[in-house]
């Protein structure tokens, strides 16, 4: 192999690892460098040995972007990854476990111990494989999003700026104020003003589970009737009108989830959390009223289907067969409104009492 060929090969091994736009120029530079060095070193071969592994050389040209997610995003990345992982994995595990256990084929036949064990095994195996897939998927998506932000240099500092001025609503520090001064240090929150992360995360997990069930398995909400070798579910919801009902459920749940995410990010009671709680509570109540009082939520044939499914062996109680949808709706609605109202009152109380920070010390 002659020198020219050797140089060409070496340069090729370097530039093929570089972005296309740089290749031509870099290969000219290397041509120059190797020529100059060879005069000094005595031979091309010695020069190339001194320059070392072309792959390593190429890496030095790429120094700027040799990480997927840099320090600027790393902390946020880890936090988002953990939360997203936890929510998705638990939700998917629970839902697919239920789905796996109640899969139909296993239950047609005598419901003996063997079948129950089989159902459990099938449930867990489905749950594990779905969970692993989900975990990989969530990891991939979160990492991809952050890698893109890293490449695009999306500015998270504006968000950090907001965090610094969490109490800015009363401290009248401008949110756009990019220059950090000690004035934007929010006071250390009172113990009782701190929102436990676990609370928000549990809420988010339940919301995700509920969303998944409502979207993929609305039949689960119903009566499960075991009659000899047959297992039937009689849905309690009106599945024929589900496409109309579902969006309102989802709006209500997603609003609740947004509120919980805000709590998770802010981590303490303050005016922002309080207003978010009031607004999201309001939207939830409007959705609930709409779902329960306006939309045809309940399965109109529930009683008939239930009687058919039970097949005369056992007479279901009358309140199940002819259940009074109007009063059931009223009771549920009242319950939901009370829950939302308590939540809002609790948040407002804690915000006004502990969350404003001005008298954090005097209360302890």
């Amino acid at each position: 192999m002659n020198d020219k060929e050797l140089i060409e090969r070496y340069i090729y091994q370097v530039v093929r690892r570089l972005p296309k736009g740089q290749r031509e120029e870099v290969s000219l530079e290397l041509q120059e460098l190797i020529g100059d060095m060879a005069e000094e070193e005595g031979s091309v071969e010695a020069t190339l040995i001194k320059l070392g592994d072309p792959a390593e050389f190429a890496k030095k040209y790429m120094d700027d972007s040799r990480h997927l997610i840099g320090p600027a995003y790393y902390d946020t990345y880890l936090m988002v990854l953990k939360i997203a992982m936890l929510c998705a994995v638990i939700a998917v595990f629970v839902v697919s476990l239920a789905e796996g256990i109640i899969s139909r084929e296993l239950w047609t036949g005598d419901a003996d111990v063997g079948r129950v064990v089989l159902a459990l095994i099938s449930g867990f195996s489905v749950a594990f494989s779905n969970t692993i897939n989900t975990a990989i998927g969530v990891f991939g998506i979160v990492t991809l999003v952050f890698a893109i932000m890293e490449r695009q240099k999306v500015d998270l500092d504006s968000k950090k700026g907001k965090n610094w001025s969490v109490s800015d609503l009363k401290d009248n520090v401008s949110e756009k104020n990019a220059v950090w001064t000690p004035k934007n240090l929010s006071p250390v929150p009172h113990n009782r003003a701190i929102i436990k992360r676990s609370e928000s995360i549990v809420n988010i997990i339940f919301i995700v589970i509920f969303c998944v069930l409502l979207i993929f398995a609305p039949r689960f909400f119903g009566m499960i009737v075991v009659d000899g070798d047959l297992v039937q579910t009689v849905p309690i919801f009106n599945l024929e009108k589900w496409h109309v009902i579902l969006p309102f459920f989802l709006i209500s749940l997603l609003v609740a989830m947004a509120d919980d995410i805000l709590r998770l990010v802010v981590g303490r009671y303050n005016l922002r959390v309080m207003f978010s709680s009031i607004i999201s509570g309001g939207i939830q109540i409007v959705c609930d009223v709409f779902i329960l009082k306006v939309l045809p939520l309940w399965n109109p044939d529930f009683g008939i289907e239930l009687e058919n499914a039970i097949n005369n062996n056992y007479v279901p109680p009358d309140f199940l067969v002819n259940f009074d949808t109007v009063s059931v709706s009223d009771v549920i609605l009242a319950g939901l409104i009370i829950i939302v109202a308590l939540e809002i009152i609790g948040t407002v109380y804690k915000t006004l009492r502990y969350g404003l920070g001005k008298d954090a010390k005097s209360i302890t």
Partner: protein
Amino acid sequence: MGGDKELLESLQLELRRGTLILSVLSQMKEPKYGYALVQSLLEKGITIDPNTLYPLLRRLESQGLLESEWETGGSKPRKYYKRTDYGARIYSELLDEWNRMTQAMEKLTGGEDNER
């Protein structure tokens, strides 16, 4: 322990890396091509591998501190780099910082009461 040597080397590398840009900028008032720069730095006691220098020159150019021109007149084409005005300004500020640092370091490590 083998780890000691590795640690020392990586610390030395880190120390040197900080001074590299300053070393390069200091030599770039007049246009120079890469290998000539390697040698002129070597003469003054600064060792830099060409496979570190060439990528560095490109980076400094992309940051606007250097500008380059291909000279095709000679026996083989050579790329000449030279400080831009912006590069000169940055260099002089880096130099101020460097002087402050060396004075401070001298105080920290040079006195009689400095224990080795």
